[in-house]
């Protein structure tokens, strides 16, 4: 392949996908943290990653790895639907119930994934690599798919920035401030789980970005979600592009999740020391 073909056919889609996946995870993380009023929330909190992992593992074990992204996406969506149907049974539910349901479903799915790893035999490394997350086989279609979901979700969440601000002080507070809290909750949950599911199906469960990027944005730009949301998209995208470049260039294409955590965590610790923990 000529150099121009490598850039346009392989590198460019990979960089674009990395940006969109990083942006997706970070924006979903920011939205979840506001909604759950919990700075420790991440995009995987409702079982998205364990659902995706289950789908991917099943594809590996039963179909020799064929259609892994599709299976991963189906698994992620399945996990969310299960959480919603269990937690949403009584109509209006406290977000805490949603959170606990997500954790329980995650553990259940993880148990099945562990079981599949145990019986996967020689294909086990495929599952392990998927679990760590990476962007080895992305194509132009992946770049288009992730962008097609991220762009509208970014606009929706940006224009819901004030609702997120109010929701982050409590749903009852938001309601008293004239915000349709229940509707806002479902819009936020729906759009952020959608971007997460797509990101997971394309790149596996890349850790760290969704949890920490919103904090970095808040430390630098303040906690107003009208700023945190676009900031998270940009910074999440940039972090994953650079992490993926590092992984590809210096570490013979290690799973990028290792890089994000390995480089990102010390950097985050340094930032906390510099600026204080009040995010």
């Amino acid at each position: 392949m000529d150099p121009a073909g490598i850039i346009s056919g392989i590198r460019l889609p990979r960089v674009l996908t990395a940006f969109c996946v990083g942006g997706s995870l970070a924006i979903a993380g920011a939205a979840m943290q506001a909604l759950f009023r919990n700075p420790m929330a991440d995009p995987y909190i409702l079982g998205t990653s364990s659902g995706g992992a289950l789908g991917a593992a099943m594809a590996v074990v039963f179909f020799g790895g064929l259609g892994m992204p599709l299976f991963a996406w189906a698994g992620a969506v399945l996990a969310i639907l299960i959480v919603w149907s269990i937690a949403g049974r009584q109509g209006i539910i406290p977000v805490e119930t949603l959170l606990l349901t997500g954790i329980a479903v995650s553990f259940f799915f993880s148990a099945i994934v562990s079981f599949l790893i145990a019986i996967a035999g020689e294909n086990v490394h495929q599952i392990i690599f998927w679990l760590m997350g990476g962007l080895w086989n992305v194509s132009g279609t992946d770049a288009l798919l992730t962008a097609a979901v991220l762009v509208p979700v970014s606009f929706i969440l940006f224009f819901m920035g004030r609702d997120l601000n109010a929701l982050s002080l409590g749903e009852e507070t938001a309601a008293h401030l004239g915000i349709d809290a229940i509707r806002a909750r479902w819009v936020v949950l729906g759009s952020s789980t959608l971007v997460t599911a797509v990101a997971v199906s394309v790149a596996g469960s890349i850790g760290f970005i969704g949890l920490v990027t919103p904090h970095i944005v808040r430390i630098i730009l303040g906690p107003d979600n009208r700023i945190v949301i676009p900031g998270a998209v940009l910074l999440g995208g940039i972090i994953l592009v650079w992490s993926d470049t590092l992984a590809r260039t210096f570490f013979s294409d290690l799973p990028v999740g290792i890089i994000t955590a390995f480089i990102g965590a010390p950097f985050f610790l340094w930032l906390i020391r510099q600026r204080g923990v009040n995010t």
Partner: protein
Amino acid sequence: MTRDTLHALGMSAGYGTTDIIEQISCSFSPGTFTGIIGPNGSGKTTLLRALSRALPCSGLLTLNDKPVSAYTAAELGMVLGFVPQDEERPFSYSVMQVVLMARYLRTSRFAALSPADYERSRTALRQTGTADLENRSIKTLSGGEWQRVLIARALAQDTRVLLLDEPTSHLDLGHQSEILTLLRHLSDEGSTIIAVFHDLNLAALFCDRLILIRNGRVAGDGTPAQVLTPQTIREAYGADVVTARHPATGRTYLMPMTGTDRTTNERLSEGIHVICGGGTGSDLLHFLARRAFSLSTGILATNDSDHSAATALDIPCIALPPFTPMSEETLDELATALSRASHVIITHHPIGTGNLPVIRALEGIDPKKIILHLPEGTNIASCDFTGGVAARILEEALVAGARCAPTFTEILVHISKKIHDKPEEL
């Protein structure tokens, strides 16, 4: 029904399947400051949250003749504001950012907040004395500062109906009265203010109307004077209180009574008659009542604060209407009480021609029964307004064996001595 009236009919609400409040019917009109009171766990906050639609309720709840359930979130937010007692602070917003949240519903999500929104928020911060906190992170605020910021946010929301859950629970004395004066002012200007109160005296001082909630039901509804009676308080709170009209504010206030030891002590069961007036006796009556003495007092005018104390303590009191001369009948009653009592204590109270007959009655009893309470810095002459007549009677009693006591403790010492002990030689 008038505008801005919040009206509840047969409203029940609670958590899960348990109703905390049941069948509550009440109406709130503009220009009234209503206090919701009641013991812990009675359903005050539940009622407030149900009124604000934060808690689903059964029954009918209308605002301006329209069911509250028919309002959109934004419509309701325009007319009804709510101040929680406290609120989580997971992120470090600035004070200004939090107050500006009240302006969201008046701004399109596609537009920026206007300078007018900032101006309104600043005014609200000034009204609650938090203007200097504008740029502070909410995580660094004290409980009282945060509570005032939450009140500022509700003010910036510009609603005609304002619901507050114990708005002064974290505030010091100065800020308590500042915030409540502000709320009083808002209600005078036509707002409907409904607040849960823990402190009954503050509620009585500032509210036009009190609703007493007990076991999830309305146990009293009316002016503070109507609702705050020793009976209703005993029933609702299980506490003994005395109520009175405060001389300076003209408002009802109440004081808890210290636990009375009702077990009578044989040695202390002898009767004591207290002659007092003008508030000089109430402390002593409480002091002696706590020690389970069998007491009587009088003659007192019914508007005398000592009379109120005696009534509150259930002490038999020979009373007569204000500014009426003492009748033969009343004086006979006094003479009986004095002869039956083992001790007669006379407080340092002003003696004029009106109450001179009471002092004269002392001439008919054993002077050894008499104890004169003369606190430090007073003497017999300083309570005499009869040109020496009363003073002469009292001095003669002292010579004949009556005793002086500058403190309550010394009164106790004299009482505990056998009546016919010889007074100590000086």
